[in-house]
């Protein structure tokens, strides 16, 4: 008895995080609303802009890029926004509200592991989004991406950090699922706008471009099109 208790003190539960991650993954597949937002939304955007790019070929505002070329980074950021701002905080607040976190906290496994598993799952989905968008745009719709790898990686890291941090702030502040949905909904549309989904700062210029410049989605756009676009 004493030895098993001492083991538990040392926290040697091999596999409990893997088990948590597995369960969170299965739950995500069974509740496909989150997945549809996180991965489905970028795919739909990719198809729409891919078709526009083919139908209206050529040069946007003298940049030498097609519509899709310009929108590829935006679509990625939209994926991060869906996962980080929409999906993540609502799930976390739901777990808190239904007493699931509390239930887990009565076991030797701290509830933070459950939060970590949820975060990890969403990060994996974000990586999947990146791959789908890169390969989908290049192989299916023939986009030309001129990417500086170090800038690209840095931009991805910064962009994901910002979106997920915003989502975690919502999860921390919202006392109920309804309020979490409201907060994340507001942030969702605000960040969609600032990500350039509707209006490209590059094409508009002026004060909107200045406003959007410090916003992190911009990083990806800058890095991916660094050498071609005067962003």
């Amino acid at each position, binding site marked *: *008895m*004493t030895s*098993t*208790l*001492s*083991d*538990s*003190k040392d*926290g*040697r*539960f091999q*596999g*409990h995080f893997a*088990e*948590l991650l597995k*369960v969170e993954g*299965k*739950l995500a597949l*069974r*509740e496909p609303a989150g997945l549809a937002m996180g991965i489905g939304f970028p795919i739909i955007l990719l198809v729409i802009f891919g078709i526009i790019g083919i139908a209206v070929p050529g040069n946007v505002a003298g940049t030498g890029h097609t519509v899709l070329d310009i929108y590829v980074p935006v679509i990625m950021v939209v994926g991060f926004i869906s996962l980080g701002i929409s999906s993540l905080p609502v799930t976390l607040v739901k*777990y808190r509200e*239904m*007493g*699931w976190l*509390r*239930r*887990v*906290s*009565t*076991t*030797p*496994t701290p509830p933070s592991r459950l939060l970590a598993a949820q975060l990890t799952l969403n990060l994996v989905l974000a990586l999947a989004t990146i791959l789908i968008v890169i390969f989908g745009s290049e192989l299916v719709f023939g986009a030309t991406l001129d990417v500086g790898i170090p800038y690209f990686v840095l931009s991805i890291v910064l962009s994901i950090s910002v979106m997920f941090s915003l989502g975690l702030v919502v999860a921390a502040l919202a006392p109920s699922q309804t309020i979490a949905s409201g907060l994340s909904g507001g942030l969702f549309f605000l960040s969609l706008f600032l990500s350039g989904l509707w209006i490209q700062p590059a094409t508009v210029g002026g004060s909107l471009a200045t406003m959007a410049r410090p916003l992190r989605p911009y990083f990806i756009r800058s890095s991916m099109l660094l050498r071609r676009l005067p962003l």
Partner: protein
Amino acid sequence: MSRTQVSEPLESLHRESDPVVTVQHLVKRYGQFVAVNDVSFSIKEGEIFGIIGPNGAGKTTAVECISGLRVPDSGSISIHGLSPLKDRNLIRGFLGVQLQESTMPPRLKVGEALRLFASFYPNPADPNGLLETLGISHVKNSTYKKLSGGQKQRLSIALALVGNPKIAILDELTTGLDPEARRETWALIESIRDRGATVILVTHFMDEAERLCDRLALINHGKLIALDTPEAIAAQAGGKRVRFVPSKPVDDKTMYAIPGVKEIERKEAYVTVIGAGDLAASVIDSLTRIGVHVSDIEARGGNLDDAFVKLTRDDTSKVQERPQS
């Protein structure tokens, strides 16, 4: 904390005379409201210890302090010599908790939930065996949202037991269950005790407490107002009750002369005597001797329900009498 320091209090695990859980002068406030007010008790190894009281009495708060989910404002709690807060990780390895009003992700399957919780513990029970014991192995592949109330409760108990706990805390386990499911759950709680675990049972059902518990703590308005065996607490209500119809009127004086009779209530033709000892036999015996026949006799033992109502009512009137300061 080093291993040697930790193992010392644990050596007391098998010493039966030592209490498993000791609660001393526990106080917990929520703002101005005192949820638990200077409560002390200790729980022996292998017993089913009931915490009873009306809704909002502070029962759940008390067990939440024991399980380390809430931080007491003052007082001390010791579980096998360990503190629920400081030795939280150690205690959680051998403490199984079933929470009131806690639900699970709706699409989580029964088998998955149990496997997941098994992975949290250092020395878990076999999930399949546990499902079998609890009679829910046939819903192993059902999702949580499709389970009936009784099945959800069973799953909740299974999760509390999957770590092979030495102490199981079960909070309002049978609330919302139909009578048959309640009886099955009772059998289950007894089987947990028979396995050698100590059970802390929170309930507001007196029949449940009377049937299952070895000892009870009765809490009202956050204060401990009785701590004893169910029989002893029931006796505080005035003990046994015998109701009957005498063949001719018997005056109070004659009734009080019967050994064991302490109180008399009359309603229409019925006479109810409240008292102790072998009450029914002594009533029949004494009345027959003076030529009174007794019919429609109904005897019941010390009833916890009566005691509960009496004790909580006394306590409440005392509280109301107290001048506002």
